[in-house]
């Protein structure tokens, strides 16, 4: 019975995390994006969708949009490779969703004395898994572009693959610094290792230990999401991109992928550089203030509260990063293709290599 409850709670918590991450936050994110950009640009933003006169600051637009996308004609162009054409957006969204599996969203929760990792899958090679998933994401794009039987789409797909592959290199190499510092490729371990304090006051977060890697990762991460300023592959309004031929939910899935990837990159940034679910300073206080008495029959009170706080801290940090990414997205104009390539290969890559060398030397002498 206890096992069952443990299992149930475990899966429930993971499921809730997943649902929130994927199915709620993404549509909400479209709203956030609209409203945030509106406020930034002295506008009001979308506010016309209403249900029974209720407008909810335009929140219903997310609903209206999904309804629209679901009911729109799903058009397959003449000469398209039908199978791949249908499959490509699924591939795209599939790998974006898969990435969430290894994100740790709280410390170990103790249920009936048994530890439960707050991570959908506790992989000891989480980081490598993440690389693999990221590497596959490009397939959804390229296949979609190719299957559309449209030259513009194909060109967009080429731009996308060039960009994604280039920036994956920088992402990978910038994270080597993290591996060197925290001595692990298990995301849970990396997060735990960020719990200590440096010099007694500074949390031992990646951003403080690896500031250069943080910037590289952020830049390359935004490039991976293919959002402005790195939206040369899409450029909906002018240069049109790989999903030009997609309509209805096919387009919707690509659209969703963008947002999912944004969240994913935000989650990873938080995990690697912002201490993941760590809530520094209050965690000790919580452990001391609350007793470890049993709570709701299966939980320990202080552990339970701590887990909730950590989860909230994680979500809070993710929101912050997303806010930052959105601000950047609504600030910068699009990079030209050659600028993207220059930045990727001539700036970020050497910098990340430099970062590894310096980190390795320091780690060698100190650690």
């Amino acid at each position: 019975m206890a096992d069952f409850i443990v299992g149930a709670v475990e899966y429930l918590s993971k499921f809730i995390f997943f649902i929130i991450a994927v199915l709620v936050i993404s549509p909400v994110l479209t709203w956030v994006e609209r409203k945030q950009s509106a406020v930034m640009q002295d506008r009001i933003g979308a506010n016309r969708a209403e249900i029974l006169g209720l407008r909810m600051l335009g929140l219903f637009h997310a609903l209206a949009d999904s309804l629209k996308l679901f009911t729109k004609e799903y058009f397959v162009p003449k000469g398209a490779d039908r199978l791949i054409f249908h499959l490509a957006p699924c591939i795209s969204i599939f790998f974006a969703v898969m990435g969430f599996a290894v994100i740790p969203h709280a410390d170990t929760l103790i249920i009936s004395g048994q530890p439960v990792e707050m991570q959908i899958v506790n992989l000891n090679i989480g980081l490598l898994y993440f690389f693999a998933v990221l590497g596959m994401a490009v397939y959804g794009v390229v296949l979609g572009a190719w299957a559309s039987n449209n030259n513009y789409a194909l060109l967009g797909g080429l731009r996308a693959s060039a960009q994604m592959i280039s920036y994956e290199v920088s992402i990978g190499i910038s994270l080597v610094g993290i591996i060197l510092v925290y001595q692990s490729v298990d995301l849970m371990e990396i997060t735990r290792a960020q719990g200590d304090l440096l010099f007694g006051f500074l949390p031992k977060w990646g951003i403080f230990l690896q500031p250069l890697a943080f910037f590289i990762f952020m830049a390359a991460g935004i490039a991976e999401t293919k959002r402005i300023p790195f939206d040369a592959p899409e450029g909906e309004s002018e240069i049109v991109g790989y999903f030009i031929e997609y309509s209805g939910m096919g387009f919707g899935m690509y659209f969703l992928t963008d947002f999912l990837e944004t969240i994913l990159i935000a989650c990873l940034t938080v995990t690697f550089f912002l201490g993941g679910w760590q809530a520094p300073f209050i965690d000790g206080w919580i452990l001391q203030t609350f007793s470890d008495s049993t709570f709701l029959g299966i939980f320990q009170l202080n552990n339970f509260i701590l887990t909730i706080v950590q989860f909230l801290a994680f979500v809070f940090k993710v929101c912050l990063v997303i806010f930052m990414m959105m601000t950047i997205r609504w600030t910068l104009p699009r990079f030209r293709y050659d600028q993207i390539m220059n930045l990727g290969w001539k700036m970020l890559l050497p910098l990340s290599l430099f970062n590894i060398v310096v980190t390795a030397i320091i780690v060698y002498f100190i650690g």
Partner: protein
Amino acid sequence: MNVHDKYKPLTWWEKTYLPAIISGVLLTFGHFRRNMVNHIKKAIGMKPKVSGAVTFQYPEVRRPFWPRLRTLHRLVRREDGSPRCVGCMMCETVCPAHCIYIVAEERPENQIEKQPRIFDIDLGKCIFCGYCVEACPEDAIRMDTGIVEISAYTRNDMMIRRDQLLSLEPKKEYYTERPDLEGKPVL
């Protein structure tokens, strides 16, 4: 001079795009902060000095037009209701979009001999440049109806015909002398 000479090459630091990104983000974030504060102030009942947005809620609230704004054309009528236009085809000639179609006919009375039998404007092609108004020697065509919502389901319906053009009236109340003072954004 080579245009490129006008631009300084970027320094290494600028090439990272970081200074530009940071100043840009600061600017947009500044706007975000200011507007958000004003929005929140308004939401909790305080009166912000300026509104958080400059938006007009269009169909309900119209933004006053500048006096020179060019809206849908109309043909001016004489006192007896006949068109003032004499079908001289100046507007048709000057129209850069070639969207005016005039066929002239004899006018029954003698002193003014000519009038348009067909006077169609293809609004799907019109670019609202106002040249037709400028060119007209009779002040017979004007663009002051205040109508800016022009749409149709077919291309043919985008044609506006002589009698429709004649039936339109100027809309003075949509125009203002000083929209910068009168126009107040609403939330």
